[in-house]
């Protein structure tokens, strides 16, 4: 369908029950325009397509009239009734095309009313998540497949999981290997004198990063002047010459072959980079500045040939490169990390990507106005002697939690004892401030915010850290105890099977409760149905819990009942609430909630 718009006669209905306003529906790639026949009626509509999330329609042959339901991203919907099914199909295809262009929603038509449209990728992700996490899979099986929860409901509470999974797709970047490139050892075939080097794009990237001159040579020579193969052959020939430490031979070879000379010479790019970098180093390390004041080491002054000063051969120095230089360079590159983030396939691509990233970083480097400021700050921080300073406590009032159990309710029964400890510890932290002081400090900070606006860290990181420490103290405590002494955990003393069952029940109860409480207040029939389903599922758990209690050996029964008790309590509370609200509902059944069909 090549047409850029569709125009059909249709009726626009605000709800399903609405008899509809007759008019003309015109859809272009950008927007949907509905003009009623009767200009006085109110049903005029003008919606941009980008707000449309998906479409639903009735099937031909069902007893419903041809409806097209377009949902927008605020969960509202526009329903159009067409004169016949072919019109509907045309419009449906058009909408499908436009939505596909938006790339958001697949065209998989679904009929089930509360279902959402899923892209294949999302589906895949969910399947993957289920496969990876057996507990999740169990829950899914238990509730979704048995019909207690729908697929959407199940995942709606796990949006975060889906998000995180999605963001994880950008993998952690790998750094360079710690091994040096000179460690690439050739393999020989054993018969001839030929050696073979295996170069991976990984290694090549490392070579380029460590030797900018080779990188530059590669960009300018390959493939115009020589093939990539010849290039690397020359490179390793140069490396071989270098490894023989025979600088005279290297000089001779370099004189004959100017391309080879590029590899043998000192790297001029490195030298110029070094000069640039040296301006940015910490002044407390800058030994280069010392040379400025060193008047005894003028050429030929001072004492030569003493143990410390050794001779350097000046001849052929151009072609000498020491191992220490290589090591330093290597470590610097490893430290800098990988600047390029491309799929390593093609050498050429690698070379160009590296060149680009260098360009960027050099541009960035030019605007280093405040780096010197930063350097000075650092210097002054370093000059202070930390332990001579007074105790550097920041004004803070520890949070006072009346019942830590409220806070740490995710902890299990065995955590209770240690959280009791934590309570004690929290009390031990001296409340260094009186209420007035706290109030004063609050006022002060508010007025400073008024004056200066919010500054970057609103709370000082140190303060935040300290408060956080106090809060999490007991969590880490519990973990510590459990990790340290397995005997202290009640669960570990139970038989394996019972333990697993208990844990499973605990998670499934949590899941159910989560959905249950999330459904209140009940505003739609859908929720009403859902709550009923959940309630049934919950009441099924009681006998199961009793069964577990009965199955354990008598000496552990008490422990188990301790563990089960909070579950019971939670369930009881939910069911009580359910019953109470049911009564209320029946009392005022005359009124119907919004959207009740």
């Amino acid at each position: 369908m090549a047409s850029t718009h569709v125009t059909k006669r249709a009726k626009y209905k605000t709800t399903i029950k609405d008899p509809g306003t007759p008019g003309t529906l015109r859809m272009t790639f950008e927007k949907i325009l509905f003009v009623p026949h009767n200009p006085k009626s109110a049903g005029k509509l003008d919606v941009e397509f980008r707000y449309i999330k998906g479409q639903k329609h009735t099937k031909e042959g069902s007893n419903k009239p041809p409806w097209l339901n377009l949902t927008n991203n605020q969960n509202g919907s526009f329903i159009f009734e067409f004169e016949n099914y072919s019109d509907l199909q045309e419009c449906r295809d058009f909408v499908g095309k436009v939505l596909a262009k938006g790339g958001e929603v697949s065209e998989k038509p679904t009929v089930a009313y509360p279902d959402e449209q899923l892209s294949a990728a999302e589906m895949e992700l969910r399947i993957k998540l289920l496969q990876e996490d057996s507990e999740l899979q169990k829950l899914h099986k238990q509730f979704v497949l048995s019909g207690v929860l729908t697929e959407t409901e199940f995942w709606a509470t796990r949006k975060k999981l889906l998000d995180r999974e999605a963001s994880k797709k950008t993998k952690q970047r790998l750094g360079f290997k710690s091994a040096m490139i000179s460690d690439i050892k050739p393999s020989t075939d054993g018969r001839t004198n030929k050696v073979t080097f295996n170069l991976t794009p990984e290694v090549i990237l490392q070579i380029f990063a460590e030797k900018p001159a080779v990188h530059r040579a590669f960009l300018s020579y390959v493939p115009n002047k020589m093939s990539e193969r010849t290039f690397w052959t020359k490179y390793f020939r140069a490396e071989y010459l270098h490894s023989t430490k025979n600088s005279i031979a290297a000089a001779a070879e370099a004189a004959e072959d100017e391309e080879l000379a590029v590899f043998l010479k000192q790297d001029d790019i490195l030298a110029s980079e070094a000069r640039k970098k040296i301006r940015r180093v910490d002044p407390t390390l800058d030994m280069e500045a010392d040379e400025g004041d060193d008047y005894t080491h003028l050429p030929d002054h001072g004492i030569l040939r003493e143990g410390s000063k050794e001779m350097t051969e000046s001849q052929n120095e151009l072609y000498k490169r020491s191992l220490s230089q290589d090591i330093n360079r290597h470590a610097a590159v490893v430290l800098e990390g990988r600047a390029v983030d491309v799929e390593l396939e093609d050498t050429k691509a690698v070379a160009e990507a590296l060149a680009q990233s260098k360009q960027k970083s050099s541009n960035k480097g030019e605007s280093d106005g405040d780096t010197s400021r930063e350097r000075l700050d650092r210097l002054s921080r370093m000059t202070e002697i930390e332990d001579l300073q007074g105790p550097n406590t920041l004004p803070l009032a520890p949070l006072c939690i009346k019942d830590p159990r409220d806070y740490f309710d995710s902890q299990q029964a065995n955590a209770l004892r240690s959280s009791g400890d934590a309570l004690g510890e929290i009390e031990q932290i001296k409340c260094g401030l009186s209420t007035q002081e706290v109030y004063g400090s609050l006022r002060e900070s508010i007025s400073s915010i008024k004056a200066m606006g919010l500054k970057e860290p609103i709370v000082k990181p140190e303060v935040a850290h300290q408060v956080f420490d106090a809060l999490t103290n007991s969590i880490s405590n519990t973990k510590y105890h459990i990790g340290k002494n397995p005997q202290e955990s009640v669960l570990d003393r139970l038989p394996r099977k019972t333990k697993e069952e208990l844990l499973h029940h605990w998670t499934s109860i949590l899941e159910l409760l989560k959905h249950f409480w999330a459904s209140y207040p009940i505003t739609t029939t859908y929720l009403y149905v859902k709550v009923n389903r959940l309630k049934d599922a919950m009441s099924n758990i009681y006998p199961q819990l009793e069964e577990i209690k009965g199955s354990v050996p008598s000496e552990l029964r008490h422990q188990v009942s301790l563990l089960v008790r909070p579950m019971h309590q939670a369930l009881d509370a939910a069911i009580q609430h359910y019953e109470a609200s049911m009564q209320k509902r029946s009392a005022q059944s005359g009124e119907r909630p919004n959207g009740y069909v």
Partner: protein
Amino acid sequence: MKFQIEDVTVYFPYDYIYPEQYSYMIELKRALDAKGHCLLEMPTGTGKTIALLSLITSYSLSKPETSIKLIYCTRTVHEMEKTLAELKLLHNYQIKHLGPQARLLAIGLSSRKNLCVNPTVLAAENRDSVDAGCRKLTASWVRAMAAENPNVPTCQFFENYERAASAAVLPPGVYTLQDLRVFGKEKGWCPYFLARHMVQFANVVVYSYQYLLDPKVAGIISKEMQKESVVVFDEAHNIDNVCIEALSVSVRRQTLEGATRNLNRISQEIDRFKATDASRLRAEYNRLVEGLALRGNLPITDNWLSNPALPDDILKEAVPGNIRRAEHFLHVLRRLVQYLRGRLDTENVEKESPVSFVASINSHAGIDQKTLKFCYDRLHSLMLTLEITDTDEFLHIQTICDFATLVGTYGRGFSIIIEPFDERMPHIPDPILQLSCHDASLAIKPVFDRFQSVVITSGTLSPIDLYPRLLNFHPVVSRSFTMSLTRDCICPMVLTRGSDQLPVSTKFDMRSDPGVVRNYGKLLLEMVSVVPDGIVCFFVSYSYRDGIINTWNDSGILKEIMQHKLVFIETQDVVETTLALDNYRKACDCGRGAVFFSVARGKVAEGIDFDRHYGRLVIMFGVPFQYTLGKILLARLEYLRDTFQIKEGDFLTFDALRQAAQCVGRVIRSKADYGMMIFADKRYSRHDKRSKLPSWILSHLRDVNLNLSTDMALHIAKEFLRKMAQPYEKIGGSGRKTLLSEEDLEKMGDGGMDEMLY
């Protein structure tokens, strides 16, 4: 905090003070009261610098009628920056408590290279090119020319500074080199000349040793300092070496060739001037008849490195007649170069005293001692007359004149050694003639004579009685402080055997033994796997280090080390070393951890701190003895034996151990810091070697740690690190306090103090 030491109120910018800092201040105050010199050893990591600065500034605050100037000498520019940063902290504190009367002016002074802000001049590579580049724009004759011809380039910053004239002053405050540059850029004034000018008015001047000790520089920079100044040499354990190096010159073939080129150029210039402006040469002649003393009136920009060693009275004498005329002087120099060339063509090693050398010059080249003595200044004057600005091209002839003046001035304490080749490379002919100074007291004598109080201080001055003999002075106070520790935060160990229980050493006959090299490698490999953050390794020399690293590289040990930590290496190229250090710190900061390979007696060992996580372990591979077969060292040892009755062996051990102590001492910065030190050589377990270590290291060297093998050392290291990771009480446990608060000091008063401190 502030407290009272006798009649002086000391302002100290921290809430607590270490007891040794307090007693250090007391001793320092006594020396200042007595107006004498003093020698103070206090371990690194106890805040020497801040103690010193706060006492001296407080002392001068309490005695406003006598303006005491502090001249603080550091060895390196980065130490200068650090000192100024500490002073800034102190100054802020004093201003806060005393108000505007505590204001002082403190500046750092360095060469043009570090202070210049003119981008065209700064583009030059080294110091001498920068100096020359500056002169090309600011020399008096260049500026005179520019006044007539606007196309002649000048330096905008200097012109602005000149125009501002007496208005160009620095407001009170503490200025690091960076601050000076920023200030100069802001105002458009040349920071270098501004700083040079402000030296006279500053209360605190921080600069390099050379500015006081090297007579070439001292003559111009330090001549206006008044006698009441207090001079401090910080990190002065190597001061004797600095002194003798300042007065040593060597001449090689390249020097002579360069000098000949320079002479040719000078003779061309003379011819040119004769043709165009003969009056200048005549004016110079007349001035020389009157003596050299007139130099003081030269414009500041024409000033040069001054005479290396002339006593004041010589400056008033007339220059000898035979070198007053330019071409005559040129002939003398040519003859001198010719003579030296002849001396270099020798087959054997020769050693001579300056007296006989001068006699020989006199008979062969016809130049007498007095003429030699004046060479340096005569050259200086000639180059000014000839308006030569590219002074960096004339270094060779300056060296020759330097040599001539030294040899003509000093009859004792020097020797001239001519070697046809380097002993370690006998097949390469590389003749060298060296004038080496043996007597450190010669260079430092003017300082002791001129200034009322000279403080020599360092973390390692043991044995402390040796320094007064080497430098020939009489300190009124000479004290060595130990370190009071809250916990055993340093852990020195002597490792005598490797993992295979065979002895390790860098003794000459053992050092190339593959077993020793492997054992050293294994030691480091084990340590990198247990020690967090930074590790520093010191080797005895560059060549030994390069050899050992090559071997480790070949045997794969280096690769294994790299699995744990990044490796950085000090090279002779300072730029590369600086970058390597910067990266090393980054690696430690980001938690990756790194190893730094350095060399004892190298630049890093002298000046860089590896405090806190930058150095949790130092390994000293071997004993850093000097190259004992070197002719110069032998001559110096002979001189020391004859004049000071110091035995050769004693001096060598003293020298090696102070270097070793210096290397390992760089790990500690404060008492909250901790670090381990491994002396990996069997010779350290001998009492005669070990006992030369400073007492603060010795007191922590337990007997069980004296004879360890690699596995035992590893075990101790693990234990130590575990212990150090625990929280501890900063104030110190029962009995001795290691941190004093203001109340503690008041309580101590006079009576209780002694038992608490000593």
